[in-house]
């Protein structure tokens, strides 16, 4: 059974139908690429799935329960974590603290716990710290040595990495990555391809990524879905989608020979 199953998803903003009866699914341990021109509704789909928007129509089932009507924090607790198109870290918190915030939805110490620091709170705080460090350690020597630096002082690529680490720290089953390769140079993009592959193979995450960069999509995706004007126009392996005439017309245009 699919981990995430979306059926007939529709979202209208006034007269504009941003997402129009989109169906898609993500299996466990699968990497799905979502492509489409700017304004095709890719990020809107992410925002609906993560609870920032409520859909006008459609069903969303994740890991055996519906996502309809849930708030973003509840969606996070169910096991979906995301990154943002424009990097959105907590710039004035340290690298470690950023990742520790990711653990928020898995822990529950409240005001009393914070003030009295009883044994349970101490144990929980230790667990938060360890999980956050684990998430940082996934990036080898990139983030761990910087754990006490402020996130805002990181290099661009490290900020992207930290965003992924923070999402991992939520102990999610499904990661939604919104244009993770944006602004990266070719070398960094190659690294990203390896990284996303490792997310699936080592950690067992299912990943959905929105990406404009075709080599990255080709390099990591088990399956690719293409959106245009809010509708899904193609679905299948990268080769199938890239050969689909509607996709070529909508997105790749005349230059498809080069990118395919």
């Amino acid at each position, binding site marked *: 059974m699919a981990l995430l199953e979306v059926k007939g998803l529709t979202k209208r903003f006034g007269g504009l139908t941003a997402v129009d009866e989109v169906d898609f699914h993500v299996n466990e341990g699968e990497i799905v690429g979502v492509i489409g021109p700017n304004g095709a509704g890719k990020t809107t789909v992410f925002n609906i799935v993560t609870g920032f928007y409520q859909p006008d129509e459609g069903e969303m089932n994740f890991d055996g329960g519906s996502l309809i009507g849930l708030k973003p924090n509840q969606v*996070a607790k169910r096991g979906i974590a995301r990154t943002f198109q424009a990097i959105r870290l*907590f710039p*004035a918190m340290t690298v470690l603290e950023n990742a520790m915030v990711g653990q928020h939805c898995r822990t529950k110490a409240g005001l009393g716990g914070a003030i009295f620091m009883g044994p349970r709170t101490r144990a929980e705080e230790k667990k*938060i710290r360890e999980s956050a460090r684990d998430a940082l350690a996934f990036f080898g020597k*990139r983030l761990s040595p910087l754990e006490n630096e*402020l996130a*805002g002082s990181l290099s661009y690529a490290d900020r992207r990495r930290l965003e992924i680490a923070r999402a991992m720290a939520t102990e999610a089953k499904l990661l939604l990555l919104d244009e993770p390769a944006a602004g990266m140079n070719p070398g960094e993009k190659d690294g990203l391809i390896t990284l996303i592959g490792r997310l699936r193979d080592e950690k067992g995450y299912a990943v959905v990524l929105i990406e404009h960069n075709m080599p990255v999509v080709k390099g990591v995706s088990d399956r690719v879905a293409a959106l245009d004007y809010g509708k899904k126009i193609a679905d299948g392996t990268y080769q199938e989608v890239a050969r689909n005439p509607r996709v070529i017309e909508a997105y790749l245009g005349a230059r498809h020979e080069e990118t395919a």
Partner: protein
Amino acid sequence: MKLATKIGLIAGVVSIYFPVVGITERFDDRTIIDGVLTLGSTIFLVIALAAGYVVAKPRHLPGEEPEPPGPSALLYGAVASGIAGVMAGLFVLLADSVDLRTVLISVTGTLIERLSFGGSAGSAVVIMAVGGAALGALGAGLQLISQSIRRPLVIALGAALLISLTEPLLNAVIPEVLSKLGLKDDTSWLYTGGGLSVTGAILVLVLTFVGVFAWTSRGERVRQAYAGRSNRDRRLIKGGALLLLALFMAYLPQILTSFLSEILGTVGLYILLGLGLNIVVGYAGLLDLGYVAFLAVGSYSTALFVSERSSLGWTLPYWQVVPLTIVIATVIGIMIGGPVLRLRGDYLAIVTLGFGEIARVIVQSDWASPTLGGAQGILGVTAPEVFGVDLREPRNLYYVILISVILVAFISWRLSRSRVGRAWNAMREDEQVAEAMGVSIIGYKLLAFGTGAALGSLSGMFFAIKLGSVFPSSFNLLVSINVLALIILGGMGSIPGVIVGAFVLVGLPELLREFGEFRLLIFGIVLVSLMLLKPEGLIPSRRRKMELHADELEEEQYDDSAGQGGAEPVVT
């Protein structure tokens, strides 16, 4: 040269301004160093020195190494302060020939005589120009000597000024300390004629210079040794230092005059308020301008249950009133938080501003006055004994406030480094992302309002007891603004910042009382210069510092990446 002219003109205007509003004449009564220097003259000295100092300050673009100032800086400094001197001199000449008293009532004959140093007005121009230029060059010269000497020198001068200015306080306290130590309570070695004596001045200058000099040359090693210690050792050292501070604060009322103890109590109340609001504004980032409402809730709730003359007709023991008041305040805090959950930043500020006013209006209204006493307030809030401690005794109240401050500071500190504190911080940084990470925005906003309200009401309880009565007029907007200002002044989100901020913002105006009508002018100058020099606050938390200097960091980063080009290692 252009800069020198500009600074010179500014300094000139300033040095004319002070005599014109009457400060010079008034401050001449105040001795800085007995028989040598009055406060009035000190102002001119400082202006001339500062102008030269600023002009000679090395300027550089971000990223560039600052170029050490050459001897030409001396010239520029002299020019700047010379210009200021000429301006002041010309003003004296003008005032001497034309009667300015009709417009500027402070420009008296004695003032002109004073400013022309007993000679003719014409000689004043020469004296001021030459003297200004010399001082300006001296100020610029400060930039030429090495940092390790300059810093102690400037600090020593500042310390001498400060110690002289606080003479009325210290001169009352020091004899007490001396006699407690079994020494002769004679302070003439330090203070004579209302200011420092010559020996005292030299003593202060030398001691501070040597002390600061030792610290700048040795301090780095001490700091490294401290950083090299294990976590546990560092915690012990820090804890020990805090304990010493607490003991010192506990001992203070034994040696202070009652006036000073009184001020200390007021500062304590503001620290409590500041710590409470710091949670709402500094931690959670919710700009609340109606915080005075919780002071009111705390005060009125206490008055209502404690005073025999309140409308209830019955009273509760004080130890029951405290938790009850906290509960009431928390509930009201959450009630106020509820409607404003969707608002952020400026909008939130305006709405909470309204709530603060509503609280006052409700108390004054006909509807509530049978219970809360309307404009007459509630009288007779005499807190009886609590566990055998009589709270009416100011000294006892001081201890209770001190303990509360320590307690609330501890709670704030624990919160700041807990899961709750992180959630608040994340929410302050980016509400949407925090929510995507699982932080319930509604829950944590209400929690912040509730906690802030509970801590604020604590201050209200002591406020009612301290005054012995409560009136609606005590709870006006200015209190909210003051509390917010002390947080910003001390450094948003920083607990030591709140404490220092409260001392500066609440304590300083009280200490400046001897300057009468100029009190608020001086206070204003201090505040404006503090905010210009340290926009992140006196003791900023690390986060806050980062925020205000984010642009600089950003620039550095560009430089970095430009330098490395495409050589950035790949993601792994």
